[in-house]
């Protein structure tokens, strides 16, 4: 029964993912097609070439082929898993994405976890101390963070910690001028801290405010009133009933935040010259690397989709109240 429901759920989601990808492919291809991007220019850069060679390249990149044909060529290759070759990195798009995504994933995972935990704890404290100065301080902090542009905060941290205090390296995911084999885990870690910190600080606000609101509501509920009537109080009551009822929605929200996480990462990576997927996206956009850009769009859509999928899974299969619905179906 339960497996049947999970199967049905996953089947439905797979269809959803496929249709999402089809739409994303169409839309992004169309947008790129509308933009004044010259793939040949992007490929050769500032070099000057003879018109003969230019014609060859035009043909290779399909400058003069009709849009439909171009789309089907691209989509056909895509179905075989061929994303084409990146114009700026000159290696297969899939390799670029693999490398950059891994770097970003570490960054995003760190800040996702840190912001989630800190945000949740702050939210619980604020909700518990609703109306006191602690609550006001946390709320103010969250409002300020929400109003702070990502890149500005990134620059600020960079200036304070790297330039003035010299605590962290200025950028990149590894030290400059050190052979890849000699890069230590510590080096990587050091280069990760500031970007991850920036992203975490920003992520805290939303989850903290959400947790706070939720906890305040829970504390006004009948079941907390009854718990009090039975002699429960203080932190014990918050842990027994508050955290229990707030945790699931908060985790769900955190998974739903994958898209913002991705957007934030793009900006932060730019400021810290952290060679992740965000930076690659900006580079691909600025330098008209169409195959890479399309590849990234597809992968980021999948990434965000999985965040939403996990959120849905939590609601449908972990929350016991919704498990019940399955029994009634």
């Amino acid at each position, binding site marked *: 029964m339960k497996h049947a429901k999970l199967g049905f759920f996953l089947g439905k989601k797979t269809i959803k993912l496929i249709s999402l990808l089809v739409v994303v492919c169409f839309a992004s291809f169309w947008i790129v097609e509308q933009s004044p991007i010259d793939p040949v220019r992007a490929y050769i850069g500032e070099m000057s070439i003879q018109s003969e060679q230019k014609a060859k390249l035009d043909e290779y990149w399909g400058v003069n082929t009709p849009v439909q044909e171009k789309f089907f060529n691209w989509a056909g290759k895509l179905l075989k898993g061929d994303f084409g070759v990146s114009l700026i990195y000159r290696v297969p798009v899939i390799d670029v994405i693999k490398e950059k995504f891994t770097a970003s994933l570490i960054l995003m995972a760190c800040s996702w976890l840190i912001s989630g935990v800190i945000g949740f704890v702050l939210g619980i404290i604020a909700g518990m101390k609703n109306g006191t100065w602690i609550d006001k301080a946390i709320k103010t902090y969250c409002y300020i963070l929400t109003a702070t542009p990502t890149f500005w905060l990134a620059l600020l941290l960079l200036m304070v910690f790297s330039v003035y205090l010299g605590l962290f390296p200025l950028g990149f995911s590894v030290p400059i001028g050190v052979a890849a084999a000699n890069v230590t885990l510590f080096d990587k870690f050091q280069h990760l801290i500031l970007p991850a910190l920036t992203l975490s600080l920003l992520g805290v606000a939303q989850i903290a405010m959400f947790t706070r609101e939720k906890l305040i509501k829970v504390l006004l*509920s*009948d*079941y907390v*009133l*009854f*718990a*009090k*009537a*039975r*002699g*429960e*109080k203080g932190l*014990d*009551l918050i842990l*027994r*009933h508050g955290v*229990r*009822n707030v945790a*699931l929605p908060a985790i769900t929200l955190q998974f739903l935040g994958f898209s913002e996480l991705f957007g934030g990462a793009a900006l932060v990576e730019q400021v810290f010259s952290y060679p992740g997927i965000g930076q690659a996206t900006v580079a691909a956009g600025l330098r008209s690397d169409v195959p890479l850009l399309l590849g990234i769009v597809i992968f980021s859509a999948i990434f965000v989709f999985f965040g939403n999928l996990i959120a849905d899974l939590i609601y449908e299969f972990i*929350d*016991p*109240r919704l498990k*019940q619905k399955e029994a009634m179906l």
Partner: protein
Amino acid sequence: MGEKTEIYSGIRQKTEALLKIKDMSLSFIQYTSGLRQTELKVISGLSMEAHKGEILAVVGSSGSGKSLLAHAILGILPSNAKLEGKMEYCACTLTQEKKEELRGKELALIPQSTTYLDPLMRISDQVIGSVEEENEGLRKKLQRKIFRKYDLKPEVERMFPHELSGGMTRRVLVSTAVISSAKLIIADEPTPGLDDKTLKETLSYFRDMANNGCAVILITHDIEAALKISDKIAIFYAGTILEVANVEDFKNDGEYLRHPYTRALWNALPQNKFQAIKGHQPMQDEVTDGCIFYERCSKKSEFCSKGFPNLKRVNGGLVRCNNVS
């Protein structure tokens, strides 16, 4: 005060009073537009006593403030509530601190509905409650014993509140009070939604508790259910108690009932004249000078509109009416 104590001591009592409430009133501070502060009076001039070994039914229609009375006794009122009057438990003044100390131990609430159970906590954990680790085994055993007694199957232990039927919910809620070994048990509307058999069973649980020496306050709007098991009936109307009658007073034609409202209630019962009472309870913001039942009373006289009648002892019961002697 002295006069009232005397009134109570005059009533036929089997046992000593565990809880005494004198002249309790409860109002809510509300902020209307422009930060103007108004007070909404929900309970006023309420006096009652609960005795060991007895069931006192507090009967009144919904919205009249019965749940708030229960919450006031337990000290779980919302922060904008203002409570006045005197409360005594075991002959000691029942302050807020005292309530906090006693609840869960000597005072227990059987709440109104399933919303009072944590939706994400398994039933056995909720019934056992928050206990120190070393006592957990003992409480677990006790919980199993209570579940067997109330015919709750072992599966129920691991269920969540939404999986329980109405009757099961009721028994689970009763279990939370039984496990606490409280001496004063306040059951808030424990009967709605129950079929006849479950209703009888539930009511018998309360009788058991009283027979075991507890004082039970049974809050209900169902006067028939109350009559089945209670020893005394307090008639709750618009935030106060108009009459405390012994259950025998409702026998025959109800000629022993003291207050016109109680008689009207009696007449409204299907097995009697099935006559509805005209009019409606005054709203909380309607200020009345005189008797709170004045508008609807068929026996009113002129001076009833001036001053709320005092609580008088009549025929082994209490009544607030000018025209009873």
